[in-house]
């Protein structure tokens, strides 16, 4: 194998390097290109498609391209957010893989100058009923997320977990962090002002995760098990100190730029800050604090040791920086300075060991690929499915309880109990409702946060499925009383060099873009993770949508559980026989096929407006979107929060199972006090949103009639025991 292949580059890419620098690169330089031009750092397969995304808007203060995106919420405040994947590290060492994923995304947020206030996570695992390995991964990942987030003292307020065979060999672990910032405190990763100092703060550099970046860009094979020592270990205590020290530093005005050391370590941090600033930088690897003796320059330059930051400091103010950092028990050292010749120069003492045009390393210099795409056969095949062909269940009580304890619908309490979701006492709506709500201290405002993606839909129809992911996120925000503002996207896909996978990816981006444009929720940041596949199977396309919404008055929030008996329940939206891709079809009939539900975004937005206005006027007792498992599961979820039952009659011409478990889009369940009913009806009528009263809250069981004939009658306590206990039961 030639040198360039060893660092994951092709012959063409190698020739391109020679073109850039006019000579053969030395080994250090080659490795720097290797990590920077890896998919993970360069986005070479994905960036060309990003042009579809709407990324700007009145409220967008920072779109994609920085450490994190920023969106305005008024009162001189803004929300900073980003999502990031740590799939491959978590597959190998679930605890540390997940923990360092959380640590990395937190650094992205405070690198912008923001205080991180919330964490979310989106997880995908294989068939938990079948494999002990899946249980091991789930336990380890959840403990890793908890271990890091709890220790650093940032509440983990939400997320999602799904199980599907497509993740058997390749779990997904995406972590999202959200911060707040005052407009005038926004910092960017710029190295500008010739002569300014580059300082290094945080943990010492070891041989952690060497090759991690290119490692993250190849398919998982037996061989990657061998590279196990590439595992990095997280130190949340160190990060807490780093976080406090950095935020204090930023307040002094001595900091020109700040950048976390993530994938590709110093190499990436140096060339990114250099190209965003004046364009040049010179550093000395001997000055970099090390954990191990005898490290080579290349090891120092590409190490992915955790909990490290670069700060670019105004010349002459280095001591001030050292003092603050020392107060937090850390050290800051000058490792180089800003230049203006556009070059990234790496020295080892007096000798120059690498000298490259900074821009050529960066994504602007990296190659870009448009791949061929091809519609896979399964896509057309799936559309041939006819719902009428499945047999109708005989006992609907059994069907509903089976659904409630199926791992995708079961309560995720076993998971979020392990996360401190209350620390910092801002969590107004805790995990377990549609979106989490956090107040913004010192204002009347709150924000609503959620992550969503139904990857079965995205597999069966990547474009429409991805639209639905955005809309589902918006529904969760709306049901909490929030106005959707912006999204961050975590795009998890298979190998983009395969035409069918690239098609999935392209379709998905187009779908997300369309939905975001219509909802006016620009894409402000995101992450791409490719090569999520094993020899036998790719994951379902999983474009995770992290969304933030704003609530102007924190007193006007809403949650999904029924609050009292005697309230009227309205169904918003219409039920059609849409069974393709549903949880019902999968969990009960063991089929993942069909045409996924249809969605009309413009029409749905009217429902959003009507619901928001009703919440704003204090007319709704609860609101919940109808998603996986249809109206039957939706009703059960509303009942189980506070143990309040419901008596419902559905007038319909559909088959009972279609009526109960259809996943038709744009539907909600809201509960209303009888005296407010007319006002709510007026609002929905005005917005021309279809609705129908379906029953009322009552007693301690869920009774569902279809055309006045009872087909479901279940005590809440029974449903709840199964639903709450299911995940724990599967693990033991």
């Amino acid at each position: 194998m030639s040198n360039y292949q060893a660092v994951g580059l092709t012959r063409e890419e190698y020739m391109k390097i020679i073109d850039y620098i006019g000579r053969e690169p030395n080994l250090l330089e080659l490795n720097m290109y290797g990590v920077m031009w890896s998919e993970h750092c360069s986005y070479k397969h994905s960036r060309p498609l990003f042009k579809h995304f709407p990324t700007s808007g009145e409220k967008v203060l920072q779109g994609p391209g920085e450490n994190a995106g920023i969106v305005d919420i008024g009162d001189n405040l803004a929300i900073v957010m980003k999502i990031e994947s740590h799939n491959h590290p978590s597959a190998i060492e679930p605890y540390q893989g997940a923990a360092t994923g959380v640590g990395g995304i937190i650094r992205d947020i405070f690198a912008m100058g923001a205080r991180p206030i919330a964490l979310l996570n989106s997880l995908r695992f294989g068939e938990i009923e079948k494999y002990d390995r899946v249980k091991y991964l789930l336990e380890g990942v959840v403990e890793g997320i908890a271990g890091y987030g709890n220790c650093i003292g940032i509440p983990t307020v939400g997320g999602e977990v799904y199980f599907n065979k497509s993740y058997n060999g390749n779990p997904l672990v995406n972590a999202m962090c959200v911060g707040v910032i005052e407009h005038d405190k926004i910092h960017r990763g710029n190295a500008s002002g010739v002569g300014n100092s580059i300082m290094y703060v945080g943990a010492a550099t070891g041989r952690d995760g060497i090759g991690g970046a290119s490692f993250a860009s190849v398919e998982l094979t037996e061989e990657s098990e061998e590279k196990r020592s590439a595992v990095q270990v997280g130190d949340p205590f160190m990060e807490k100190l780093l976080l406090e020290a950095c935020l204090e530093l930023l307040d002094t005005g001595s900091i020109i730029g700040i950048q976390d050391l993530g994938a590709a370590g110093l190499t990436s941090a140096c060339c990114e800050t250099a190209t965003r600033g004046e364009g040049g930088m010179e550093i000395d690897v001997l000055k970099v604090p090390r954990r191990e003796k005898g490290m080579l320059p290349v090891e120092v330059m590409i190490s992915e040791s955790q909990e490290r930051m670069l700060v670019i400091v105004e010349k002459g103010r280095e001591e001030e920086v050292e003092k603050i950092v020392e107060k937090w028990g850390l050290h800051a050292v000058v490792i180089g300075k800003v230049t203006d010749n556009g070059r990234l120069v790496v020295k080892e003492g007096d000798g120059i060991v690498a000298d490259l045009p900074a821009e050529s390393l960066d994504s602007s210099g990296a190659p870009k690929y448009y791949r061929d795409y091809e519609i896979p056969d399964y896509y057309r095949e799936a559309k041939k499915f006819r719902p009428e062909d499945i047999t109708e269940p005989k006992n609907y009580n059994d069907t509903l309880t089976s659904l409630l304890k199926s791992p995708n619908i079961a309560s995720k309490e076993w998971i979020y109990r392990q996360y401190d979701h209350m620390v910092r006492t801002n969590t107004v709506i805790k995990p377990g409702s549609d979106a989490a709500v956090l107040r913004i201290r010192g204002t009347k405002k709150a924000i609503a946060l959620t992550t969503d993606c139904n990857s079965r839909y995205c597999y069966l129809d990547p474009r429409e499925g991805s639209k639905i992911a955005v809309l589902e996120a918006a529904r969760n925000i709306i049901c909490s009383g929030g106005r959707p503002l912006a999204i961050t996207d975590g795009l998890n896909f298979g190998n983009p060099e395969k035409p069918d996978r690239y098609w999935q990816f392209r379709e998905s981006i187009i779908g997300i873009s369309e939905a975001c444009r219509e909802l006016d929720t620009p894409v402000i940041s995101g992450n791409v993770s490719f090569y999520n596949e094993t020899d036998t199977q790719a994951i379902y396309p999983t474009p995770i949508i992290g969304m933030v919404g704003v609530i102007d008055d924190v007193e006007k929030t809403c949650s999904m559980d029924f609050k009292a008996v005697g309230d009227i329940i309205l169904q918003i939206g219409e039920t059609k026989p849409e069974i393709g891709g549903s949880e019902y079809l999968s969990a009960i009939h063991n089929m993942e096929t069909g045409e996924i539900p249809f969605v009309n975004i413009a029409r749905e937005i009217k429902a959003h407006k009507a619901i928001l206005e009703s919440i704003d006027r204090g007319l709704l007792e609860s609101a919940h979107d109808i998603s996986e498992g249809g109206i039957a599961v939706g009703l059960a979820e509303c009942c189980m929060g506070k143990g309040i039952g419901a008596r419902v009659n559905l007038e319909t011409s559909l088959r009972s199972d279609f009526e109960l478990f259809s996943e038709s889009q744009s539907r909600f369940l809201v509960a209303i006090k009888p005296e407010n009913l007319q006002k709510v009806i007026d609002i929905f009528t005005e917005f021309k949103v279809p609705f129908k009263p379906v029953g009322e809250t009552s007693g301690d069981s869920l009774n569902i009639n279809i055309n006045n004939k009872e087909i479901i009658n279940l005590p809440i306590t029974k449903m709840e025991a199964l639903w709450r206990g299911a995940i724990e039961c599967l693990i033991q």
Partner: protein
Amino acid sequence: MKFGIVVFPGSNCDIDCYHALRDSLNQDVDYIWHDTEGLKEYDCIILPGGFSYGDYLRCGAVAPFSKVMDEIRVHAEKGKLLVGICNGFQILTEMGLLPGALVRNKNLKFICNTVPLKVENIDTPFTNRCDLGQVINIPIAHGEGNYVVEKDELAKMKENRQILFTYQENPNGSVLDIAGICNEGKNVLGMMPHPERACEELLGNREGRLVFESIISFLEGGWKSE
């Protein structure tokens, strides 16, 4: 009347205590940096929750060596009020100011939940505004809240009525369902649950105020032992 909240590297709930006392209970309150020399006079000092020094090796093991802690020990020895919440409780046992120790939860998991506590003794500065046997709902958030203590010590504690709060449904395996205790002198409180997280209607729970209101009422001299 003045409250002080010690801030260790790795404290997380320092801010929560501060807001609860200042914003919800209108008290005068300062942060005390762990490195402080020459501690001012405080009526009540709080060691907050979190992961001081990362909670590495053992929870709360390193914090007792912080500079300010010698003076805090003196504060307690003078009979003034000292409260340890969660990590603070762990620190107090590490310092020997409270008996016993806190080990891994029985299920080996971190648990974040709101749980019912029973008030076992109301003749203390920390519980005088409660009713005996009253049940209050307070959040817990810990991985190592399983209280253990030697038998003889436990017998002494019972006799002295040092057990102040017990869990209604034991979440972590604590001996005798213990959630909170005080020292013999009844001026040092340690509890795993977080009353500071339950002081506001907006967060859906105000029952934690009872602990702080008891302290305030004691300090105001309004409390009389029965």
